[in-house]
């Protein structure tokens, strides 16, 4: 099984603390020995494999949502902005990886199959904030 194109999100397994992301790539923590390489460049898999890491293409596994406002984030998760990036629970126990983008903007990586649901929840919570 291989992807038809270069993956965008790679799950990296191994001693991930020593992974050196290339320019434009970001390494986000998933758990002990697990990270998500976001914005993986062409050849990232081969590069990481050469360094002894196992990689899995998670591009199609994740839906990415971007939201604005710490108040909205606070209604979605108990993770504090200063703790990010981190994996936490959003919208009734859905696990999500949340990445801070600066200027009170955040990116959520949620399971693809729950992407629409989370989008609906975020829109609903925004209404609660009067937006």
């Amino acid at each position, binding site marked *: *099984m291989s992807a038809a194109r270069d993956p965008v999100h790679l799950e990296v397994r191994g001693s991930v603390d020593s992974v050196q992301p290339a320019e434009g790539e970001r390494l986000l923590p998933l758990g002990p020995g697990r990270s998500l390489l976001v914005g993986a460049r062409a050849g990232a898999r081969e590069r990481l494999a050469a360094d002894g890491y*196992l990689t*899995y293409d998670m591009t*199609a596994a994740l839906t990415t949502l971007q939201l604005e406002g710490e108040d909205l984030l*606070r209604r979605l998760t108990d993770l504090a902005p200063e703790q990010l990036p981190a994996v936490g629970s959003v*919208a009734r126990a859905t696990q999500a990886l949340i990445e801070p983008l600066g200027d009170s903007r955040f990116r959520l990586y949620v399971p693809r199959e729950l992407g629409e649901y989370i989008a609906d929840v975020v829109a609903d919570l925004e209404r609660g904030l009067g937006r």
Partner: protein
Amino acid sequence: MRLSPQPNERIDRNAPVAFEFEGGAIEGYAGDSLGSALYASGRRVFSRSFKYHRPRGLVCCSGHCPNCLMTVDGVPNVRVCVEPIRAGADVRGQNVLGSLDRDLLAVVDRVGGPFTPVGFYYRTMIRPRRLWPYYERLLRNLAGLGRVGGAGERRYDVEHRRVETLVLGGGRSGRAAAESAGGDVLLVDERGGFTPAGYELLAPAFALGIYEGNLVPVAAGDVLYRIRAERIVVATGTIEQPLVFPGNDLVGVMLPGAVRRLVEEWAVRPGSRAVVIGADEAGCAVTAQLTAAGVEVARVVDLRDSQVVEIAAEGRRGLLTRVTVDGEQLPCDLLVASGGRQPAYSLLAQGGARIEYDAKRGAFVPVELPDGIGAVGSVTGGGVGGAVPAASYNGTRGKCFACLCEDVTEKDLKRAVAEGFDSIELAKRYTTVTMGPCQGKLCQVASIRLLARELETGEEAIGTTTARPPWAPVELGLLAGRHHEPLKRSALHARHVAAGAQMMWTGQWQRPFSYGDPAAEVRVVHESLGVIDVSTLGKILIEGPDAAAFLERLYPNRFADLRVGRVRYGVLTSDGGRIMDDGTIARLDDELFYVTTTSTGSESVYEWFEWWNAVWGYRVEIVNVTGALAAINLAGPRAREALEPLTDADVSPEAFTYLGARELRVACVPCLALRIGFVGELGYELHCSAAAAEQLWDALVHAGAAPFGLEAQRVLRLEKAHIIVGQDTDSESNLLSSGMQWIVKGDKDDFVGKWAFEHASVRERLVGFTMADGVVPVEGAQVVHDGRPAGHVTSARVSERLGQVVGLAWVQPEQAADGAEIAIRIAGEPRRAVVTLAPFYDPEGKLLRS
């Protein structure tokens, strides 16, 4: 009734606000509470009591007691004494038959007493048993608080906060603590009305409790804040305690704080002639305010100076008219009675503080505060003290209430003790004292004192009840928050909707039940070519040098000998040998396996794998790729014919045999193809990137495959007697009873559930059956033997192909034989069925292997 402007009044006399009370217009001012505006308008009876329907009026004006609970804009149990006035509000009394002033249910108070002693519902109205539902309805209608359902739909939200310092209480001490704390400080106060200096203020807001990890839920209007704090400072102050004497619930008996608020904040004269009885300085100091407000003070009784024995209040129609103190009769319409103040320690106790009785001060005080939680101000017990009031005062007539919320009297507590409920926790459960809306704020100390007196011991020996959230009343809607139902959609969801599929819930997934005609869908799979979205299957990669050993130890069957490119069915069992999940395991490489699970089992199986590997420490990576991959099952006699033009690979029976696993490109989509068949016909399960699922699906449909849904799949799998874990098995089912002992390789050293399998007993067996008369039993229908329950049906459907009703059922072991007759109860009548152990359709699996 309004006084001339007071120095610290909160009302804005230039801003009148009108609202409705029981349909009539009431006018107050901005800054009023609904309760103060009603009081200023002359209203005295605010509620009827829980059990006896006695008239009740303002007592605390602090939102503590139950006496001012009303229904506001359809929302029941609103404490109008602290509910801010708002224009157009619709305020109504509750728990009455008639009106607040003339409640017909007050008959309970007049004649019901002898029939309704404490705990009467445990002893009476219990026979005949069949009448209990009627008794229950009667009791529920007679007693209780407001009725839910009158309000329109309201929105509740939950917000998470983290702060360095959280201060609970905005009195002098709380504000000082917040100002000096430094850093990120949030102060929560029930009333507000002051300007924060160097900290954030959340008001009006109520802390509901202190949970582990310094988590404090705070109710603030329609938002529940879940606040985690590095440090909590509790500054909840004290709560004035009522005295216990006959007639202590009459309208006009108030606590000093209520009088102070009425006069100082809302400029309302609380009465015309008053008697003051106080146990401490604060209790007696209210005299000056009364005098200044033009209230005649008939007598001041300072319990610190006088040994009062008798206090009794009398009234007419529930309104105070006279107080008797040691024989002296004092006509009045206001009795300000206080038994001193008690630290409001409940939040501290919830946080882990120890509470001790200080006999000198007559107060329960917090000691030994836990790390991360502090206390400032009078909640520590500082400044609390005065005379220790008697447990109750003698009087000639009238009920003597220990608990206003639940109408628990001194007599009730005496009776509870006499019946053996002689600890505060038992007495609480028996009498419901402290279990009402005030949650013990005004009745805990009184009940402890009464118990101590009856048991001839001290308050310290009685102790307090366990402090539990919520400390303040909270709407259930606020605790529930927004109603969000997780909904999983497969990568092909839009295709199903576009095709007009009738969707159904399976776990959190929405899946097609059918595309219009399930029977036609079954036919097309048997006769031609069908396609079904099985993306919901859990999909887990196991990779590493120990991958085979890991699976070998997890599953009862063997995987070490599974060749690359082959698939094997596997059943997971728990340590106790119970069936947990099933699926297929394909070996993709020496060190790489691809495991599928049931649709609802992906997360639990993944966690199960992770858990065991944490124990065993194998060199494997476990990766849940359920969402990353879609899966489509192409099934039917034309499956190969349809697949061939879509791929360059050789998919002939010789090149791609049954139970094979191969990587193919189908319609240019890279796929892992598994030659397996849950539905009993020649089939290929194609797993591909979720991003390419629609492309693959479209190509297969274009090639002539007709989509079929879950209903057709259920018929097809039942014809093959393939089980669905969770449908045909339950938490007690094991491999032996399910007839799957063939899967177990008993010669393996070990596997999860081996011991349990070796010691398993068979109480029932899962078998196939056909109905003799063609009637379809419902799932769950009873199997009966000699008129007794002997099993149940788990699945049953009409099979057009077989011309029979087929199903699976649990039966007694002696009935689990080919051709055995069993009886299934349908609509009360036993119907004949015949046991079949082999699959009903293609029992030798020739079609699958073709």
